[in-house]
Structure formats: structure tokens, C-alpha cells
């Protein structure tokens, strides 16, 4: 290829400028420019290149940010819903009120149908049932046909129970404290150890045979008042050795501890009895208790009142 040098006269300029090579170059450049204006092939090429490499580029920009936020929202909601569904399922599957209450967390209440609550309610000891909602109230609310659901939640260390109508209006409401909570199960509450280790029974511990013999001499109504679910006690492991009566009365209910001799050692089965009935047994066990304290004498009357 000859070395390029600037033409020194017009003729050489014309010859070099209008040469085949020059014309081809010029026309090529023009053709490229015109075809780009006409067919936008640069845009098409760039666009296609970007489309091909699309998957290798980052998911950035507001539309992707929206997508991520949606993902976060979906996950958060899914978590909430899953928790709720689990809680609801556990609530539905609960075979006793205490099992249902055990499943409640501080942040998660449980909504169950009125029918399920009635079933669970019918399983708890009658005496405890009275302290929750009186059967008369339950019958009245059921008869009104407005009762739809029951909501239960933990609040300030207690459990709140709301009987609701379809509009979520509270038809009746009650709370269960710790002691009542322990009494809601149909299964007896069991603790390892002996009655001597439980201060609440101090001075009120009797041999089991004496206690049950005394109980046997009382009327069936009193017996039911002391042990409303004897079957569940019978189902517990071991042999009764001693029986303790608590010194704490709560909502006219009193705790009874039955010390059992089991292959695993001594265990205490806890039950709840009605105070007036337990008092009858204690009068037989301790004749010095000639009459109950005056404040407790009103019990049968109060029962009538209800």
C-alpha cells in the first residue's frame, strides 16, 4: 500500500477523491448512516444484545424493589397465617380445656366454635364449671341462639374467655387464674414428691385409707363434691398413701393432694373439691372441728342463689 500524502494540486485531489476506493468508502459510510436512520439497526442490535444478556444482569430498580417488598410481605403474612392456623388446629383438636389453654401463647389467642366449647365445658369438673360460667348462663346463652364462638387469650397471667355472638359482641366474659387453670383438666395434675414438701397441706395430711373411709360414709352428693372425677384418679398410676387438704380456698374450691406410691417413687395427684364437701370429710377426720367457720356456713345458700 503506497504511503498517503496530501495532494499538491486540484487534479490530484479530484482523482484521489473520486477514486473507486474513495467512493466506496464514502458510499459505505452514507449507506450505514441512512440505513440506521431508516431501519434503526443499531438500536435493534443493542436491544437484542441486551435481551440476550438479560438474565446475567442484577435485579435492581424500583420494579424489582417492589417485588422484594412483596416477597417480604408475603412471607410475613404467611408466617402469621401459619401460626394462626396451627393455633386454630391445636385448639380444634384439643381434647380438654386445659390442653387448649396450654396451647395459648402471650401473642396468640384461639377462636373456637361454641359447640366445641360446650363439649370441653361439659368435661371439666362441675365445681370448676360453676366458677367459669354457670350452667344456667350457658343454657340461657345457648337458648338465645346468638352465641357463635369463643375467644380465649392470655392476659396478665390469666386466661380470658369471651363468649361471642356473630358480630363479635361479648355475651359473657370471665378470667381464669392459675389455680382455676390447674383445675380445668380432666386429667389429674401430677407432681413428684411427697405432701410434706407442699406447705399448703401442712397440718392437714391424713392417711389415705382413713380419708376414703370417711368419704365413703358421706352422701353421694358430698362425695361428688369432694372428688367430681374419681375415674381419672383411678386411672393414675400407683396406690394412694396419704391425702392432704390445702389451706387455700379459691372461688369456694379447695385443692386436695393425694400422695401415690408409684414405681417411679412418690407422686402427688392434685384435684379440686368443693369447700363445703371437703369440710364434711375433715369434720369426720378431726372431730374437734365441731362446726365450720361462720363465713363458710353460707355455702349451701349461696349455691341456691346461683
Amino acid at each position, binding site marked *: 500500500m503506497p504511503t498517503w500524502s496530501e495532494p499538491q494540486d486540484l487534479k490530484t485531489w479530484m482523482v484521489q477523491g473520486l477514486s473507486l476506493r474513495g467512493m466506496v468508502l464514502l458510499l459505505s459510510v452514507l449507506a450505514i448512516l441512512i440505513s440506521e436512520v431508516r431501519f434503526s439497526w443499531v438500536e435493534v442490535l443493542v436491544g437484542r444484545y441486551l435481551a440476550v444478556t438479560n438474565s446475567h444482569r442484577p435485579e435492581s430498580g424500583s420494579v424489582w424493589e417492589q417485588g422484594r417488598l412483596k416477597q417480604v410481605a408475603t412471607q410475613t403474612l404467611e408466617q402469621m397465617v401459619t401460626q394462626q392456623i396451627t393455633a386454630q388446629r391445636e385448639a380444634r383438636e384439643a381434647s380438654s380445656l386445659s390442653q387448649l389453654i396450654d396451647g395459648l401463647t402471650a401473642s396468640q389467642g384461639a377462636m373456637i366454635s361454641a359447640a366445641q366449647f360446650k363439649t370441653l365445658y361439659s368435661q371439666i369438673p362441675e365445681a370448676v364449671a360453676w366458677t367459669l360460667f354457670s350452667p344456667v348462663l350457658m343454657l340461657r346463652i345457648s337458648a338465645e341462639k346468638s352465641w357463635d364462638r369463643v375467644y380465649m387469650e392470655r392476659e396478665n397471667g390469666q386466661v380470658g374467655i369471651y363468649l361471642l355472638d356473630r358480630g363479635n359482641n*361479648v355475651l359473657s366474659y370471665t378470667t381464669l387464674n392459675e389455680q382455676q387453670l390447674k383445675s380445668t383438666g380432666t386429667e389429674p395434675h401430677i407432681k413428684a414428691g411427697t405432701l410434706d414438701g407442699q406447705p399448703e397441706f401442712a397440718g392437714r395430711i391424713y392417711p389415705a385409707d382413713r380419708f376414703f373411709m370417711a368419704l365413703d360414709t358421706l352422701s353421694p352428693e358430698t362425695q361428688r363434691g369432694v372428688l367430681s372425677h374419681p375415674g381419672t384418679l383411678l386411672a393414675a398410676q400407683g396406690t394412694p398413701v396419704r391425702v392432704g387438704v390445702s389451706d387455700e380456698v379459691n372461688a369456694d374450691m379447695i385443692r386436695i393432694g393425694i400422695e401415690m406410691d408409684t414405681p417411679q417413687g412418690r407422686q402427688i395427684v392434685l384435684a379440686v373439691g368443693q369447700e363445703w364437701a371437703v369440710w364434711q370429710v375433715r369434720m369426720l377426720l378431726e372431730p374437734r372441728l365441731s362446726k365450720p367457720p361462720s363465713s363458710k356456713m353460707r355455702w349451701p345458700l349461696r349455691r341456691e342463689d346461683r
Partner: protein
Amino acid sequence: MTDSLRFFRAVTAFIYLMATVGALAGMGLFCLFLVAVKDLPQVPEPIGRINDTPATEIFSADGQRILTIGGRETVALDDVSYPFIQAMLATEDHRFWEHRGVNKLRTVKALWVTLFESGKIQGASTITQQLAKNLFFSFERTWVRKFRELLVALQIEAQFSKQEILEAYINQIPFGVGAYGIGEAARTFFGKPAGGLTLAEASLLAGLPKSPTRYNPFRYPERARARQQVVLQRMVTTGMISREEAIEAQAVSVDLRAQGRSLRVDSYFLDAVMKSLEETYSPEVVYHGGLRVYTTLDAGMQQQAETALQQGIAKLEAQMDMTHRSEETRVEDDNGLQGALVAVEVNTGAVKALVGGRDFFQTPYNRAVQDNRQPGSGFKPFLYYGVLENLDKTPADVMVDQPVSIPVAGKAPWKPRNFKRTYEGAMVLKKAFTASVNTVAAQLVSTVGPDAVINIARRCGITSHLAPVYSVALGTFGVSPLEMAAAYATFASGGVRHPPYWIRRVEDVSGRVLQEHIITGERVLNESINFQLVDMMAGVIDDGTGNGVRRMGFALPAAGKTGTTNDYNDAWFTGFTPNLSTSVWVGFDRGQGMRDKNGAGITGGRGAAPIWAQFMKQATEGEPPRAFVAPPDIYFKKVNPETGSLAGFWTRDPVTVAMRKKHS
């Protein structure tokens, strides 16, 4: 060297220069391309994916959808009215069907104007470029951002059909008032589907995306009409319609949807609901999770509340001669005369209507829930209940209205005065209450103690800060209208407190319940004492400082209390029927006093009670009269207003008081 040779040499040099500049520009662009392409965003496939976020919908108590947040209603291109497509193309990008993502001629022209005409910036973005910008980029104006936007536009053009691009574009552009996409816009502004838009409606809508706030037809109808004319002119210029069609469309009156304005995204009630939701679920869930939120709002009542408040404040402004004041004075007045109204259902605590100011758009500060303004005498019911409960007094007991000086430990004695600056001597408690006598209230609080007043207020649901000082009984600590309405609802319900709420139920997009409000009621006041108080409060409306309510024609059994603070900074009226408790506050944000043209102060009875009456008349229209139920141990007797002794036929203006049998 001849001239010709010199000319040719110059031409050659120019060609070389141009070729060099061209080559350098090409290389520069290529380098820029290499740099820009590195972190260019990925384009989602399909492009319609941008619209698949589920919407959070908010419903009123009767199931009417009042707000949709996020989520986009995607309308297929075939289902959009043809005039709208034409109007949009004529306005935004009339060569859309021809270019491949960039309009080269328009871009060169815009570059020339921007570079060489000082102070001018011309845009040349095609619809594809706008779509790229809306999907991926911020609104920051830089050359690199513009170049990257152009590259993405080229990719979109290469990857998707024109129909897909146009469909994505019209389904995501903002039209203002919370409406994104043509489907939502057509429903929001005209209450019809996108396919039913006429040329007049389509041209109005096509003009909005340029500046949705500036051309908002609800707020600036004139500007919107002018912009519509520009759109129609563009359609004529680009040959999409004839001049006659444009004139015809311009002449057509466009009917905007009536409810669009009142139940728009920025109402105070919805603002309060949104804040609650964000606190409970996080903003991500609220805006991107697709919740179904069922509120307690009564849409009709909300409309009545807004109207009553706006009309009432306008009347007050006329009385105060504020309507003709200069702009400077208005600026000094901050947001002008403002007000708030909250209505709560007595037996549930459901908030039925909530207005936090005259116009959310101008002042989004929600005075109904956030403002803590002194309630003045509106706080006296808590004092009087405390007196009836703790001091075992009766409404017929006698007190003396006289100048008082109550010693305060370590401070100057407290010497409250009556509003009228006059003293009327002996009077029964009920009269002192209905006439809102401050000196009697001061004597009572000095006896019962401020702690008792605070205790009653807390039992009724007042949560704002209250300090145990005597003046608390005269309402010197700020509370919100929501607190007042809910606390008075406790009196209305016979002493049972129902916490106020505005969200009944929240569901996820599949209808699974996330939250339900349980309507709890707690007895916090003695039913009989409460009835005695309610009877005294009824006296305020029938014969006392709030009797303007009766003069305005509100005839249902009702009770309430006015409140006015020092220098007439705040005017309150809170009252209730057995079903609805409503609190109204009027005042300036900066606390300037309210006085009429003649210098007379605007009291609660004059400023807030008329708004209350107008609202309650409409809100309770058609309701049968229902009296407050008296407990069995309540009986009534007429007493001498000054001595409290049993009234005879000779007694002037006897006062009927509610007594408990234990006092008989």
C-alpha cells in the same frame, strides 16, 4: 496554492475532523455503553409482571370499598377505549408505532435545545423510555441515568411487542388521587371501566400524567380543562381526530364521580387506619401484602361530618370576618381556622366518622387523634362524677358561686374565675354544672382532690397526660377529640367503657382472618351515679350552655358539655344520644383566640355546638327518640335551684334532679 485547492483542503480537513469527532463519539458511546451495561437492571419477563402485586383494600362498615392501595388493576389493551389510546399517543409519543425505543430526530432536537438554548430543557422521551424510567430508575436527572434508561428502552423494544409495551405503560402510569393505571383512573374519576371512556373523558385523563397533582380535576377543574384542550389540539395536529371532533369534545361537560373526592386516599379517617395498620403489620405488608381491611366507617356519616365541619367553620370565619383577609394574614394564621369531629358508636366503641381538619390535602395533621388541646369545661363531667361518687353528694346539694382562692402548697393561691365574671351565689350542683360555673368546680376539686378527677378520666378512657393539680378539673391538660368522644360514650352507655376502634377485621388476600376486633365492655362507673351525671349533662343541652343545639332543631334525648379555654383558644362540644357520642373541636393550630367582629369570644356553645347539632341531626335522621334508661333506684324530684329544697308551685324555675333512693 490556488483558491480551489485551499477550498478542497478545508473541506477535506472538515471531513477528517467530522470523521474523527464521529469516531471519538462512537468510541465514547461504546465505552459509555460498556460502563452502563455493567449494572443495567434486568428486565422482568413478562413485562406485565409489574402489575401482579396484590392490592390492599379498605372497606367501610357497609362493605363499600373506599380505598385500594398498591396492586394494579391490569386492563388488556383491547379493553381500553380507542380514544384514550389515541389521546395518550398524541400527547406522549405520536411516533410510537414507528420507532425502536428512541425517537432520533426528536432526541437530536431536544439535545440541541438543551445544549444551546440557555435555560431551556426539552424532553424527548418515548413511551418506551418513560416505561423504562418508571420501572427501574429514580427521577434524578443525570446524563448517565438518561443513557441507561435509553438502553433499557432499546431492550424492551427488542424483547416485547408494541402492544405489550403500550399495555404495560397505560397500566402503571400515575393519574393522581392514588389512581395508577387507566383502569383505576377511569373508575376513580368517572366511575366507569376503561373501555367506556368517551373522547372528552379520554382526553381529560390523557393530560393528567404530565403532572397529576397540578391537573387534578377534583381540585383544579379549570387547569384540567385547559390541559384537556392541549391534548385535543395534539390529537388534531397528529391527525387522530378532526377539528370538529375536538371542538365537540371540548364542549362536552365531563361529570366527575361524586364520591371520588370525599373518599379519596387522603381522608383523615383512612390516614388513621393506615397508621394503625402500619404499626401492626409493617409498611411492607400493608402496601404489598394485599390485605382486606374492614373498618367501622359509616360512609354517609363521614360525608355528613365533613360537610358539617366545613360549613360550620366557614360560618365562624364569616362571624370572625376572616373571609376577606389578605394572604399575609392567612399565612400568619398558619392553617387558618381548623376543626375536628369524631363520632363513636356508644355500645361498641366503633368510630363511625372521623374528620381531622378542613382539608387533608392542605394540612394532613390529624387533629382528631393527634391534637392535644385543652378541653376546658368539657372535663367537668369527670369532676362531677368523682364528687357524686366520692363525696356522696347529690345534684340537689347546694354550693355557693363566689370568688374563690384555693391555697396551693408552695405556690400562689389558685383563683379561677367564671367566664361571665359574675357570681350568682347559692345554687344546686346541677345548676352549677349546666351553667358551667368555674368557682363551684374549683371548690369541688379542692375537696375531692385532683387525683379523683384523673381516676375517673382514666376509667373512662382518657389516656393523655394529666397532672394531679387542681386545674385539671377545669380541663387544662390536652386531650384529643377521639378521647373525648370515647370517654363520653362511657357515660352514654351507662358506665360501661368500650375502647374505641376503627378496624373490625383484617384478612389476607385469600380471605384468611388475621385480626378481628372483639367488642369488649368493662363497667367502670356506677350505673346510678352515672345516670345522675347524664341527667345533669342533659340539662346542659336543654337549659344550659349548650342549648343552641335545641335551638337548631335537634330534638332527640341527648346530653353533653361545652368547653371553652382561656382567651377563646379552643371551643369544644362533646355530647351523645344513647347510640352515638360525638366530639367537636374548633380552633387555630397556633392557638390564636377566636373572637367575632364585635370582639365577643367564640365559646364552645357558639363555635362547636352548632357543628355538633348539624352533624347529629343528619346522622340520627329517622331514629326514633330513645331516652337514657334510668336504673331502678333512681327517682326524680323538682327542687329549688338556690336552696335545693323540694320545689312547690311557688318556686321559680325549679330544677328537676335525678336522685338515688339511698339519698331519699
